[in-house]
């Protein structure tokens, strides 16, 4: 693997770009590994990378049923933020944001992380109080957070609809260190960095069954043969329940829902921040990619589904929200829209935990927020697998929290998965 640096860029520039090597190997599966991670998305790849990097466990395989970057890694709106208030969540996401800040150097891969600020609009004194509380909690924990009054907001983003008489904009809650990144680059960067440390990335390798022995999972049946793993990790958000039942473990506090994302044609620089608009049943978030496309999304399709395609009522809903807050988008053309399958959990928070099978570990339930969580998710999942006990930050992110009554419900929406957007 050729390192990306100025010297190699110049050398290859003079040699017709012919000395670059492939980004990661395409190995044949070995018969056994110390750790097998099922799911080659951002979380699975990050886990493999931190297992090798932080814990020196390098005999690791990542099984991916499709190709790297083909699942939810390539189906998100690339927003990175850490505006959480519940104990466990804010430390976790803040650590994730800190990992993002150095990720390009860490991986020797430009993930184009851009800390352009995350601007969450509010439209009533009640909403201002509510968001002030959350952002104050963030400040108390050392996360950056501030409120912009209307004057500041108008100066920063002059072309929002400030004449909406139904939902007038009063100001915004802002996290300046938040922003977005290039999702493909994150997947490729983690895959390349993990591969360099000796991790086998096995694409087109779908898990079809498990063989149990003495209560443990002894081996995994895959479309590329039988693979043994001393420890096994699930990181397959969207399809967690399917694997969980394949391992005969019963039910989970998860429903699979689909969430759409949209990309417009490329336009000249229009929007410098990530803007979030959510009021009166609308939910809309938008940013502009480095290529110039407007990247935006809204709510779930509101019914359970494993289909990776969106339905039209939500397209209309999102377009209406766009026009309500950003009328200048009216003539812009939509290039693509797609849907990803989310693990929506019963309290809107994730799981990084042990399971009833002693050599099986679970990483699941990322709701809307999987993308920004990827670095910390890999970090703490690797930590759990290597050390056999959860770090303090994720000690309550387990399946037992519901019975204990310590749900981690940021929105206070109750046990209805589709409401935790």
């Amino acid at each position, binding site marked *: 693997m050729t390192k990306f640096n100025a010297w190699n860029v110049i050398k290859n520039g003079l040699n017709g770009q012919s000395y670059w090597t492939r980004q990661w190997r395409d190995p044949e599966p070995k018969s056994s590994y110390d750790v097998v991670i099922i799911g080659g998305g951002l979380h699975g790849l990050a886990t493999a990378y931190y297992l090798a990097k932080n814990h020196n466990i390098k005999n690791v395989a990542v099984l991916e049923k499709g190709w790297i970057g083909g699942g939810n890694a390539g189906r998100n709106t690339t927003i990175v933020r850490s505006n959480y208030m519940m104990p466990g969540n804010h430390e976790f996401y803040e650590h994730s944001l800190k990992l993002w800040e150095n990720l390009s150097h860490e991986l020797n891969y430009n993930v184009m992380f851009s800390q352009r600020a995350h601007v969450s609009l509010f439209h009533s004194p009640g909403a201002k109080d509510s968001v002030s509380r959350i952002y104050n909690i963030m400040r108390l924990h050392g996360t950056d957070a501030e409120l912009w009054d209307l004057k500041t907001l108008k100066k920063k983003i002059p072309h929002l609809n400030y004449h909406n008489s139904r939902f007038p904009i009063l100001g915004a809650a802002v996290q300046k260190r938040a922003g977005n990144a290039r999702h493909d680059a994150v997947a490729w960067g983690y895959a390349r960095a993990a591969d360099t440390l000796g991790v086998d990335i096995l694409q087109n390798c779908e898990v079809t069954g498990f063989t149990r022995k003495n209560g443990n999972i002894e081996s995994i049946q895959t479309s590329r043969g039988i693979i043994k793993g001393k420890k096994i990790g699930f990181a397959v958000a969207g399809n967690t329940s399917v694997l969980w039942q394949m391992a005969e473990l019963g039910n989970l506090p998860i429903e699979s829902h689909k969430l759409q994302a949209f990309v417009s044609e490329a336009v000249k620089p229009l929007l410098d921040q990530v803007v979030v608009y959510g009021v009166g049943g609308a939910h809309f978030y938008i940013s502009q990619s480095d290529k110039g496309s407007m990247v935006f999304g809204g709510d779930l399709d509101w019914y359970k589904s494993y289909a990776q395609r969106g339905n039209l009522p939500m397209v209309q809903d999102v377009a209406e929200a766009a026009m309500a807050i950003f009328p200048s988008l009216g003539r812009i053309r939509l290039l693509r829209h797609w849907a990803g399958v989310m693990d929506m959990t019963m309290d809107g928070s994730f799981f990084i935990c042990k399971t009833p099978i002693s050599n099986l570990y679970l990483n699941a339930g990322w709701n809307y927020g999987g993308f920004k969580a990827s670095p910390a998710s890999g970090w703490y999942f690797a930590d759990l697998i290597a050390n056999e006990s959860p770090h303090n930050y994720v000690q309550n992110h387990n399946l037992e929290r*519901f019975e204990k009554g310590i749900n981690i419900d940021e929105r206070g929406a109750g046990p209805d998965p589709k409401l935790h957007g």
Partner: protein
Amino acid sequence: MIRINCPYCGERDHSEFSYGGDATINYPSLDASEKEWTEAIFFRKNIKGFQFETWHHSNGCRMWLVVERSTITHEIKSVKPCHPDLQKVVKNNK
């Protein structure tokens, strides 16, 4: 758009309805253990394939329905009123 054939109103767009959730949950008795209640409230089969689920015709007759729908293709096999007595009434009227 999914089309749901409401037994009271006829076939309508799914945007007239609100999705409820798993229609097969049996709530335990009030004095059942915490474990049983946790299971009923928080844990789901999350079926990939055909499942029975509730929908509310919120912008129509406002009746609750049980719909048998595929969570992969969204194909609908059957739509019935939620309440078993109403199922009989609808049947007898047809």
